[in-house]
Every structure is written in structure tokens, then in C-alpha cells.
């Protein structure tokens, strides 16, 4: 099993995470979901990779980009992988 290039840190039923998932699917991007806990204090792994405990957060191994905040992530994904993107 090859590792997808994008890792998505997400919380079950979080609308902002679902928004990122929709964009990933629209762009046909492979991703791996890592689920964390609702309790903010329990999200040290997210803090380690992204510098903040908020989800969604993505790590894109292809570009070396790590990012939080769904609006930023959607903009990044569309800009990088969408039509007219780089």
C-alpha cells in the first residue's frame, strides 16, 4: 500500500473538515485521514505537525506544505491542483 501524498488531520463530523474532504475529492487527490479527539488538549500530534491544535490540518508531502484553517486549505488545494493552478 503506497502512502497518499496528503495527510488530513480531522475530527469526526467537523463541517470544516468535510469541506476540505469535498475539495480533495473534487480534485481527485489521494489522502490519508488521521482522526483526532474532540478535546483540544488531546491533539498534541496536530500541534506538533502544524504548530496549532486546530483541525482540519493537512500535510502535503509532495510540496512540503503544512497548513491549518479550512478556507486556507481549500484555497491552497485549488490553487495548486485545480484548473489554472500551478
Amino acid at each position, binding site marked *: 500500500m503506497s502512502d497518499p501524498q496528503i495527510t488530513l488531520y480531522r475530527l469526526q463530523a467537523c463541517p470544516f473538515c468535510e469541506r476540505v474532504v469535498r475539495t480533495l475529492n473534487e480534485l481527485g487527490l489521494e489522502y490519508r485521514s488521521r482522526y483526532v479527539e474532540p478535546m483540544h488538549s488531546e491533539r498534541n*500530534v496536530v500541534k506538533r505537525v502544524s504548530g496549532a491544535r486546530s483541525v482540519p490540518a493537512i500535510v502535503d508531502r509532495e510540496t512540503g506544505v503544512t497548513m491549518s484553517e479550512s478556507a486556507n486549505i481549500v484555497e491552497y488545494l485549488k490553487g495548486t491542483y485545480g484548473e489554472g493552478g500551478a
Partner: protein
Amino acid sequence: MVDFDVVSLPETDHVAEGDTAPDFTRPLVNGEYWEDRALDDVVDGPTLLLFHPMDGTFQGTYLYNTVDDHGWSDDLDVLGVSISTPYAHKRLLAERGDGVRIFSDPGAAVVEEYGLAHEIDGMTGITESRPAVFLLDSDRTVEYAWVASEHPEFPDAEAIGDAVADLVD
């Protein structure tokens, strides 16, 4: 002497020594997060695969206390499987099972494939797992297998320790 009734469990065609442990994909929980993982992808050396009743049962608690007491996760990968949710696994791993990761199989399809299903009287609709221990080498060949044949029954820590020492050394 206490009169202690131990119930014999029916014969089962379970995964046995010499078999290749069936591959499966389920959420695998560590201390921080969970993600879908295939057993085949996770096993890359000697691995102790432990099936146990739901998180919270004393059988599960004793099992992870035994793992911790013997320090097995220092010697090889230790993977648990139970029908409990990832959230329950995370709570369990906060207390015990240092270095252990646990698969979540609420539908018990993996439990059934391994021949470990156990219907618990008075818990309608829940398929439980018998306690079971499988020691795997890096290509998932089962080097040692133990499956409970009585209820309740506990694995023999000394036998597991010997099997681990044989495989790891």
C-alpha cells in the same frame, strides 16, 4: 475452596500455527490518532497480535497489564484488536498498553474471520471476541497461537514470553 464454574466454549476453526494471518484493514489507534491501516502494511517484523474482549472488561485490563509487566512492546510490535470504538481504545491506551496500537473492529468481521466469535449471554446483538494470542513473523506466518477454549480463560504469559524470545532472538 470457591466453587468456580468455568464454561467450555464450542470448538472453533480458528487461525492456527503455520497459517498466514488473514489480512484486514481497520482503524488502528495509537495514543494520538487513528487511521485506516492494513495488517499487511503494519507488520514488518515480529508482531504480537492480541484479540481481547471489549475495552473495559477485566480480561482486557489484565491483558495489557501483562503486556506492560513483561515489556513486550520493547521487544516487538504489539497490536491489539477488539470490537470497541477508537475513542474507547484511546482511553485504554492513556492508562496502559505502553507502545501498543489497537485495531477497532465493531462489526466483528475480523473477529469472525479469525474464528474467534463469542456470543455473550445477555448482550443481544453484540459479537464478542474470545481472548486470543497470535505471534507473527514478518510475513504474517503464525509462529504461536493460543485461543481461549473456556470462559473465562487467560493466556499463559510464560508461554507467550518463551515464544517471543524464540522468535526475536
